[in-house]
Every structure is written in C-alpha cells, then in structure tokens.
C-alpha cells in the first residue's frame, strides 16, 4: 500500500513551542485521526503540510512529491476544511464557487451542485448568514468537488453541536467508501474518530506519542481500576499514568493482556477509549 502523505523528522520552532521530529504516514485510502490537546502542534503540522508556514527541517511528501517543490501540483489534489472559515462572507455560494472554480483543473460542477443539494445549503444567501455547521458543509463541498485525493481537516467539528457532528461523520463515512480518498482529520474531540478512523496519530507538546492503527489501540490499551493495595513499584511500571484517590486508583496501560495476567480478577480492566488515552497520557500521574 503506498502512502499518500509521508512526514519525516519534521521540526518547526517558535519562541514558546517546538514541533519536534514529527514522523507519520497516511496510507492511500485511509483515514488518519490526528489527535492531541489544544496547543499540541496539530494546526502547526497542517500548516506545514499546506505550506502556509516554513519548516525548519524534515520532509513532507504528498502523493510522493515534496510539498515545497511541487506546491501547486499537490494542491490540485488536496481538499481542505479548516476550523475557521476563510470565505468572502459578503458573497453567496455561487459567487464563491465562481472564484474558486478556475483554480482547479478537475473541478466538477455536477458534484458541487449535488453536495449543495444534499447538504441543503441555500445558494442565494450570503455566506455570513450561515451557521458554523453550514459553513463547514460548504467547505466540505468545495473540498470534495475537484477530485481531491487527500482531504485535510483541521478541527472541523470544534464548536459544533453533537447532532451536526454526527451528520458530518456520516458524510465522511460515505466519502471514505471511495478507496482513492484519504483523510487527515485533526481534532481534540476524539469520539469523532472512533467511528471513522483507520489510524491514529497522537501528539502532545509538539512530540509524537504514537502513530498506530486504531485496531491496535483498541486491542491493546486498557483502563485498570482497583484498590491502592495493588500498586507497588513493579505494578506501577505497567502503567502510562495513574490517577490515585482515597478510594483507589485508575490507570492506563498499553498492554491490556499483560495487565489481565498481573491483576487477574482483583480489579476491573476495560478497554480504553481514545479520550482516556489522551487524558491519561497528557495529564501524567495524579
């Protein structure tokens, strides 16, 4: 399986933040969930991929091509949806389309019209009258109507209600049935990804925590809950982080099978959600 996006040793420093030797790949036809708390470097990474900021070192290859040398060529096949909208808000959908259409070689008006219809977007109203959800839908329609092979989404669900988020995920679910389309979906709302992601890349404070298939994560990570007597120097080593209280402890392990062998029936062991993994990893021991 070839990779649609390859990131190697990517580094970018700001005064108070460094994206440090980031590396991950997105195989063709897959959905990569890109998670991390606010300020972990997700948007910086996306800006580097989109060539909006300059990297200090490292490589970014999109469709096997360097993203700086082949900027224009690559962007022909990228669709983008950002958390904020950068449309001309005084215009309506059709005027906005007229502006964007000439830039893409493979623009398909029929596909665009179909999405506008499916998403129930009003063609004649000014974009500034749209709700945030409608603007995201418009971004998505614009991202999908020029035969893009990679859709980059930076926090598209932040600030949206659960009903709309679920609708958006259904739309994405339909899109990914096409094996040619890959998605990089950055979010801090990890539940969004449990349904659609094939891979998860988790970064924290500019550093890669892991990049794995979602199945690997679901199968191996576990949440252990029990009384504090079970914790000693050896058992503590088994956990990524432990939350202790007067009543007992809750801890995250990345080897649920080993944890089951150690603790047997003395405590509750359940599968960890992406949210558990993110919270426990970011917070550390408490």
């Amino acid at each position, binding site marked *: 399986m070839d990779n649609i996006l390859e990131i190697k040793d990517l580094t970018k420093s700001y005064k108070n933040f460094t994206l440090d030797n980031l590396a991950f790949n997105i195989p063709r036809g897959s959905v990569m969930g890109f998670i991390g708390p606010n300020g972990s470097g997700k948007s910086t990474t996306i800006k580097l991929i989109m060539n909006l900021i*300059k990297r200090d070192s490292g490589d970014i290859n999109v469709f096997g091509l360097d993203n700086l040398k082949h900027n224009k060529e690559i962007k022909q096949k990228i669709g983008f949806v950002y958390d904020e909208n950068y449309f001309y808000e005084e*215009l309506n959908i059709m005027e906005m389309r007229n502006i964007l259409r000439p830039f893409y070689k493979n623009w398909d008006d029929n596909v665009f019209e179909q999405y506008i219809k499916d998403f129930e977007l009003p063609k004649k109203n000014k974009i500034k009258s749209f709700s945030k959800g409608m603007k995201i839908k418009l971004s998505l329609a614009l991202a999908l109507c020029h035969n893009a092979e990679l859709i980059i989404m930076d926090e598209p669900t932040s600030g949206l209600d659960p009903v709309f988020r679920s609708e958006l995920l259904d739309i994405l679910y339909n899109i990914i049935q096409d094996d040619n389309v890959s998605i990089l979906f950055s979010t801090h709302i990890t539940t969004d990804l449990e349904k659609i992601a094939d891979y998860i890349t988790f970064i924290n404070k500019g550093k890669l925590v892991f990049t794995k298939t979602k199945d690997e994560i679901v199968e191996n990570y576990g949440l252990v809950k029990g009384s504090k007597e079970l914790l000693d120097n050896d058992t503590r080593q088994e956990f990524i982080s432990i939350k202790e209280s007067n009543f007992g402890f809750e801890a995250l392990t990345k080897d649920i099978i080993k944890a089951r062998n150690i603790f047997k029936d003395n405590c509750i062991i359940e599968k960890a959600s992406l949210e558990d993994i993110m919270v426990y990893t970011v917070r550390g021991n408490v």
Partner: protein
Amino acid sequence: MLNLIIKDIIIQKKTFLYAFILAVVASTNFMNPGPNGFILYVFSPIFINYMFINLALSYDDKNKSEIALNSLPIKRNDLVIAKYISIFVFAAIGIIYSIVIGFIGKIVGLSMFTTTITLNNVVTILTCACIYNSILFPIYFKLGIMKTQIITVVLFFLIMIAFSNQNKIVDQKFIQFVNSSTLTLNSLALIASLIFFVISLIISVYIYNNKQF
C-alpha cells in the same frame, strides 16, 4: 493570475457603483472641475484606483482569505503579481468612468464639461497610481492591512494639508505642474515610476514568499 484579478472584482461589485457616484459628485458638485478638467480626468481616476485596491485588500484581510488563497493551487508569486497588475485594471476602470461621465456631461451640455481626457492625463494617472501602490503593497505584504491603513491615512492627511486652503501655493503649483508639464516630461515620470513599480514588485515577492500564516 487573471482569475485572481477577477476575484478582486467579484468580491467588490458594489465598489463599481460607489466609484461612479464618486466620480460624478466630484466632477459636478464637490468643486469645479479645475483647469482642463483636473478633478474629473486626473483626481477621480486616481481616487477610484485607490478605492478598489484598498477595498480588495480589506476584504482579503477581513475574511483572512490569504490562508484560503495560499491553500489553493496558486503560486505565491502569482498572488503578488496579480495585485500589481490589478493597479492598471483599476486605473483603467477609473479612466473609463471619467471618459463616460465627461462624454455624458458634454452631451447634456453642462458648463463644467468643456474638455476631454488627454494622453497627458492618462500618463499622470498611471504615474500616480504606480507610485502610490508601489509604496503601499510592500507595506501591506509585510505588515498587514491595519498598519497599512494607518500609514495610508497619515499620507492622505499630509496630502490634504499640502493641498488645503492655507497652502494654496502647493495646490496651485501641483495643478499647474500637472497641466503645464509636457507629455515628454510626464512620460519620463511614468518611466521612472514603472522602474519603481518593478523594484517594489521584487521586494513584495520576496516578502510574500517568506511570509508565514
């Protein structure tokens, strides 16, 4: 590149109307058209050019459109070059408005419309638009619209003071200069301003290619 200029036009269709009204008002009421139609044939095209360019930049800034534009398959160089070419497009719009208003004014028989636009006027318009925007664009690409507008306002007031009643001399001298200077002299000024334009373009391309969003 052409698509980017068309974009700057689509986002401000209303400006066409405002510019026309401005040109009519300026040439009929605001003050007398000046010797040889200075207000109609020189001042208003320059001001219309200023209006279109500034509003295009404001709309881009208001909607943070640079981020979207730079995510599209467009070279950064082309984004800058398109802005510079748009100077001539918007100057042409200003010139066409003046010609139309002058023509209508003459047909209607209004007393202030006695002259027609001259090649000398066109050269003056292009010179002023080139110089002004060649100063404006590198500042905009480097500092963004807010600071550019502050600088624009300061420049505007300086020009107003220079042309105010207390300074009749500057005013008259300028108008005299514009009207009396020969086509050759103005053409030399235009050539100089075009050189300035090219230098400014090179600086802007350099600034924009290093810009981070």
